[in-house]
């Protein structure tokens, strides 16, 4: 029976459609229109995230005996808006002897009921940036869908940050072709490290040299918290431990040396579908197709292995035996017979440990079922 594995997209040229949203607790709006073209610095959505709620006893502050005595005329401003400190919300009476309810600090006038004023204080501004060139496919109250084309590498882990810059390789920073992002404060570079991160020294180097992001194949899991504290994105393409780059990933990065690159280092959550991504955008193009992710493993398909001892290796499926195969540790599992692309070695790998890499529908070498 067909086996449908996970798909981790590693493609040099594909159509990329991404959704942008405000944080769940933010109140805000869309800043762009459908069909408009955006640049990396374009703000797509903007809003505020309120912090604490405070209650003000309007009955007491207005010098009244009960909430019934508060009239509509006393209300000075509309609800739902943000007001600076000292703005009168309700006033009872006139002149110097008037009693007032005023905002004690910058706050959103959230609710007024039963003689109580509820303020959401210190609303913090939030903005969601495009981080890449593209076109707005759709824009609604709280979400924007952006489309572009280019290379896409889905990765294993990210530290929750996002940025963009010129793709540079750690060994040859000096010789890098620059894209104009750099200045005295900023290298303008997204740095591809040659091997696994095994020490926090690389983070210090990133800060010192003002890198805009880090791409590495893997990292000691013990360094995770330090990576999360960095202000720049860190993306691991393979996972944790000492794992080298998958050949297909490294080749794709190398072929895009010096190009504008967006790092969306989403930290994978157990319950979220978003994955960390390296996007090297070339702009929207009608020729490009989105990768198909709903494919079974078939003979002839290109797969990538996701567990040791062949972790990260790319192979072609030769055969899908009907009977389970016994692997090194004795487990009998459904497996695929594959030929690795690096040394043409032939081996069996458990189907549970393979992933497809998202070949687009119109790709010439798409395997035939």
């Amino acid at each position, binding site marked *: 029976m067909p086996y449908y594995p996970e798909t981790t997209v590693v493609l040099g040229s594909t159509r990329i459609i991404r959704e942008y949203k405000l944080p769940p607790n933010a109140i805000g709006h869309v800043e762009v229109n459908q069909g408009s073209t955006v640049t990396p610095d374009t703000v797509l959505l903007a809003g505020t995230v309120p912090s604490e709620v405070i209650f003000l006893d309007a009955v007491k502050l207005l010098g009244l005996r009960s909430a019934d005595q508060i009239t509509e005329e006393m209300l000075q401003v509309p609800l739902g808006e943000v007001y600076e400190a000292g703005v009168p919300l309700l006033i009872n009476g006139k002149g110097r002897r008037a009693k007032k309810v005023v905002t004690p600090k910058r706050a959103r006038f959230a609710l007024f009921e039963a003689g109580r004023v509820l303020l959401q204080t210190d609303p913090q501004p939030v903005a969601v940036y495009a981080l890449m060139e593209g076109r707005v496919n759709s824009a609604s109250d709280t979400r924007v869908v952006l489309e572009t084309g280019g290379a896409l590498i889905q990765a294993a882990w990210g530290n929750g940050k996002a940025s963009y810059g010129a793709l540079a390789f750690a060994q040859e920073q000096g010789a890098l072709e620059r894209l104009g992002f750099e200045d005295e404060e900023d290298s303008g570079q997204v740095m591809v490290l040659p091997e696994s991160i095994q020490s926090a020294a690389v983070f210090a180097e990133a800060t010192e040299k003002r890198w805009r992001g880090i791409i590495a194949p893997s990292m000691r899991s013990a360094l995770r918290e330090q990576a999360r504290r960095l202000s720049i994105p860190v993306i691991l393409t393979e996972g944790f431990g000492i794992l080298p780059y998958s050949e297909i990933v490294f080749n794709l990065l190398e072929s895009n040396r010096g190009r504008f690159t967006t790092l969306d280092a989403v930290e994978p959550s157990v319950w979220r579908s978003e994955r960390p991504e390296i996007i090297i955008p070339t702009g929207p193009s009608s020729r490009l197709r989105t990768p198909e992710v709903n494919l079974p493993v078939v003979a002839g398909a290109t797969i990538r292995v996701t567990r040791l001892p062949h972790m990260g290796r790319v192979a072609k499926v030769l055969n899908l035996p009907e009977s389970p195969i016994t692997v090194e*540790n004795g487990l009998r599992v459904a497996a695929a017979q594959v030929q690795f692309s690096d040394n043409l070695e032939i081996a069996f790998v458990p189907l549970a440990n393979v992933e497809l890499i998202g070949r687009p529908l119109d790709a010439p070498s798409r395997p035939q079922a």
Partner: protein
Amino acid sequence: MSARTKTPQAKSGRQKPPSSARLPRRAPESQLIAPAVGRVVTADIGSVHTRVALYDLVEGQFRLVGRAQALTTAAPRGYDVSEGLRRALTELGAFSGLNFLSADQEQRLLLGEEYGNTFVATASGGKPIRTILVGLMPNVSLESGKRALESTYVELVDALDLLDVRTIEQQVNAILRAAPDLILIVGGVDSGANAPVRALIDTVRLAAQLMPSNKPIVLYAGNAALATYVREQLEDHVVLYVTENVRPSLERESFDPIRLELALLYGDYRARTTPGFKTVQDASALGVLPSVESYGNIVRYLANAGNRQQNVLMVDVGSSTVTICAMVRGALNVTIRSDLGLGHSAVSAAEAVGVRNLARWLSFEPTPDEIMDYVWNKTLRPATIPELTRELEIEYALARELIRAALRTSRQGWAGVPINAPLPPMQPIIGVGSVLAQPINPGIGALLLLDALQPQGIADLRLDPYGVMASMGSLIHLEPLTVVQVLETGGLLNLATAICPVGKPSGTALEAKVVYADGRSREVRVPAHTLRVVSVPAGQKAQVSLKLGRGLRLNGKRRLTFEVEGSAAGLIFDTRGRPLVLPRDLSRRAELLPKWYAAVQEID
């Protein structure tokens, strides 16, 4: 978000409210009469796999006739859970020659009465429902609320009660910060004082009004006299469910209505948050019920199935949760540890049990980051399986420690059983989960259960490799007779019978004579501190006569004779003693652990 109220009713209108005596104690004599339903198709949507099963009449009795599984398709972009179900159904269809999907491109689910079958679905996958519990007294209504919540997949993030020292302002902020998916309001006995409960309802309403999006679900199960007030106050601001009071009087708790409502609510919540879930929910006769509710139903049935009530223990080691369902001294106790799991929750699990505790089950010294790197990669790719022996050992170590940790939590709620006392007799002990059901050899699954639970006496170990517990536990609401037949015709796999004497073993721990039904016999002598397996093939029975060595007892005796049923792993003599002591010295462990693995796979 539109407000609504729901009452606990099955979609088909056939649903019976759960009760502690849903099933007859014994399969009735009339069991050869076909139950009302025809073919039964079940689905259990887990975090990693979606399993489907087909039950049909064979020689007048309902039996499991086919099963299949596919990866659950909830996470990746562009997928929905119904896609994984379709894939599994395609495979089931190929095995059975039946069509469960329409032939057109739409691939509609051909499930339900109109297609000549009964379809029920359960789920355990997905993010636990973030829940705030609101009640009057911590040790009265809140305690009842907590016990009701044990029947589903929730993460309790805060609790508000009358003794809460926080101001209303602080309580509202706490609710907003917690961003709950569900607020369960309990409290107040029926016809009791209203004012304190009203105040709590007002606090919940204020918080709900201030939530920018994703209005929470509120389930009210408090003072029945306030149901109308609750509707007036909350209906416009939340998704509202109202059910019977969980604590109608100080002396009485009523769990069935609230547990059923939580089960229905779980399906509705998943349908709102997980793409494709609604498709499955619409096809299922009862919506999608939480698997744990089903486990509870089956454990309760098994505990009452014999001539006398017995203790039953079920352990489900999943990717994102470990669930213990125990019927102890007539009381059902359900523990769900959402921080423990072998895949999605592997990191939090390793942190919870400690790397040192995991390392003591390994026959090698792990490198400083090896275990944590392993669990991090497992969390990133939970569906993958270990290929290297070293990694498999880590996986088995995790399984043992997760069961131990979940059992410790569970035992806190076992009334009348001291936490540090040995595990009371359980008949049977049931293992659920891939790590137990699909190891190299059934003996390994038995070994993991023995190591983690350390039962004493004669332990009947069973396995649920086909998802029978989840599917039959939900079908019990519709067709109890079908469930009886499936369970009594081998729905659960007899894994092993373990003989675990108590005491300090030395020299020869026991001598046993096994007499098979065909008259053949075997005599074995088992030294202390070892494992030895004697074959009793599945479907057969054998009589076992035991003579225990000095200082050892089995069920309080030195000599005894009893009958055992055949099983996949066989009759396991475990003379390693209790509590099981693992050598600290690595070289001793490196010698001992491989011997244990080998012993349970070598059947005499």
